[in-house]
């Protein structure tokens, strides 16, 4: 892999101090910034999900709060609208971004809640452009003899602050899947973004409820 960088973890202190001390070429240190960003924050998210002292509402609120600081939800929301982003009225697009925030928080919580007993280990990163990184991690299940699952996080650093824009489980990217769904839904509903907003709001409510047991 020509763009691979070896794993070099840095402490949180050095990560925070670097922009203050170093004058300009942040891109050189950026891969490790992306790795540290994922390493620190995903563990925080998993800690919240596995904290049994929290009530359901507290857990949801804390997870959503963390998620909104880490994830560029607006960028993802606009991406998932596909070609309808250009044709939809601006007010509808803004309403969609808000609905998507609630849906994403509920959906991410639902996805990650399955993995609270597992540990995530950063194994390296790939730089796609000066501000676009993919951080590779392994999700290790201590009770399984199977190889660890590969989970990749796409991190952008356009504004200097790392933000998460996508996540892939075993090579399957979530935002690509969401875009296909939303575009198909809009295609069947004459591009009516309001219908998609209503549908997403219903889904967010349903996802906040516990999954039915088998």
């Amino acid at each position, binding site marked *: 892999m020509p763009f691979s960088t070896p794993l070099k973890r840095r402490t949180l202190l050095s990560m925070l101090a670097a922009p203050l001390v170093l004058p300009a070429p942040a891109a050189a240190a950026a891969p490790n910034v992306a790795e540290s960003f994922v390493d620190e924050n995903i563990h925080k998210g998993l800690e919240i999900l596995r904290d049994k002292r929290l009530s359901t509402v507290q857990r949801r609120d804390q997870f959503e709060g963390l998620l909104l600081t880490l994830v560029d939800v607006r960028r993802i929301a606009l991406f998932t609208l596909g070609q309808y982003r250009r044709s939809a009225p601006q007010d509808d697009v803004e309403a969609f971004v808000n609905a998507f925030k609630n849906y994403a928080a509920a959906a991410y919580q639902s996805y990650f809640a399955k993995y609270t007993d597992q540990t995530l280990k950063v194994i390296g990163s790939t730089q796609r452009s000066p501000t676009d990184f993919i951080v590779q991690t392994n999700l290790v299940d201590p009770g399984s003899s199977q*190889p660890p699952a590969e989970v*990749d996080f796409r991190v952008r650093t356009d504004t200097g602050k790392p933000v998460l824009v*996508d996540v892939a489980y075993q090579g399957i990217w979530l935002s690509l899947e969401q875009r296909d769904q939303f575009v198909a839904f809009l295609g069947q509903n004459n591009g009516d973004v309001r219908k998609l907003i209503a549908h997403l709001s219903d889904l967010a409510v349903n996802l906040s409820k516990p*999954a039915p047991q088998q």
Partner: protein
Amino acid sequence: MGRLRIWLLAGLAAGLGGCASAPPSAAALAANDPWEQTNRETLKLNGKIDRYFVIPTVGLYFLVVPEAGRRGVHNFLGNLSLPTIFVNDMLQGELSRAGKSMWRLVINSTLGLGGFFDPASKAGIPGHGEDFGQTLAVWGVGEGPYLVLPFLGPSNPRDAAGLAIDVAMDPTNQIHFKQHIWWDAGRIYFTLLDLRAQNYQTIQGIQRSSVDYYSSLRNLYRQMRAEQIRNGRPIRQDLPDF
């Protein structure tokens, strides 16, 4: 020979061929899914089969067979697939992976008591999948339009043809013995049961979180197959810009 499985596949193909559908929409063509209307109907049929037959059976399976037993069934079925995986490893020029498949077959068939246990994984030789659909892809054959097969779910012409070839080349299907149709039927039944049991929570999660379950499955299938064909390496470089 697994005539039952071959007839089943032939029946599925004939059924699909007989499906009449309206001309594909522009959106369907853009998604490389000209048979979308028929595919959606097939998915509905599969949903009914799943709801009224497969899920109750899986529930009973969970109730009657303890986890260790279900793991044994899963291992046994995986072991039966190893000769086919080995051949596909070889056809793709993946000699290292072919060696691993061979060692897994030897170790699990002997020390693993016919494949019910998986000592090979504990010895550092984890399993991997390969099939003739992937081999065709490695040889440069395109996937073709999206296709939902009755009973079997998401596919495409390349992978459906690959599945038929995998069935035909499976050495366990070449063994003729008295009433082997029961062996074929049992293997199909337990393969479907095992597959559904393994993916029960995943499918439930997709159904709960999907805006459009059909297009979600279509995208997941395509991404999953692309990952399988790459054998998980390296990370794809064709990701869109945000």
